[in-house]
């Protein structure tokens, strides 16, 4: 049913030879994501507004989720997303709304 006009041998044969190889791309996205997560962590730790800190930690969690995907761990990602993006920020926001929002100097 399908012709092979577009498929010379494998998806990646073209990639491996002439462009940035798939492997390097894979690791490149990994490194960029990890670097963004460092920034998010730093901001989350130093931010005085705790609501913003929670959002930074959610950003960091999102970056870790991408890392888990790139490290081929879909099970972990499925566990991690509800826990670190869903439940903990939610409960932390409830805590902040019930207590105080600003960290004093």
């Amino acid at each position, binding site marked *: 049913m399908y012709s092979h006009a577009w498929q010379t041998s494998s998806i990646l044969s073209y990639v491996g030879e002439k462009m940035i190889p798939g492997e390097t791309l*894979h690791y490149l996205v990994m490194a960029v994501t*990890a670097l963004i997560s*460092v920034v998010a962590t*730093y901001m989350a730790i130093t931010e005085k507004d705790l609501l913003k*800190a929670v959002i930074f930690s959610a950003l960091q969690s999102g970056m870790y989720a991408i890392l888990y995907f790139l490290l081929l761990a879909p099970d972990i990602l499925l566990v991690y997303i509800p826990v670190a993006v869903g439940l903990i920020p939610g409960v932390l926001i409830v805590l902040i709304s019930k207590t105080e929002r600003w960290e004093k100097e």
Partner: protein
Amino acid sequence: MEPTEFLNLYLLSVTIASLLANVAISLYGVFYKPHYTKKIIAVSILSDSANTIAIFIGFRRWLSPSQPPSVAIATNLSREGIEKFANVGVDPLPQALVLTAIVIGLAVTLFLIYLGYMLYCHYKTLDMREIRRLKG
């Protein structure tokens, strides 16, 4: 070392260096930030970073430019499929351990959050320096 190989190794090293940096920053946050909520955020980042390093340990490099590693789930259940799968899959054991660790970290973090609320009911603040002063 070929340039491509060096680049690959360097990118992997940057990843693990970032994770170690996250561990360091969050340890700083746990011990030196005065606010209790901030400490909880820091400790959850700490355990997440440890988990990510664990998964990183179980990762497998690309076997060839056209052979990426596979998730730890067999899709081809024939005899040949299983034998090939054992040579391309990533290590499932760290993933299972991390699954356990994530849930445990979630449980303790949740309990810390409830404790934080009770602390606030007692002291009307969550700043640990204030609490130490109020406790006398």
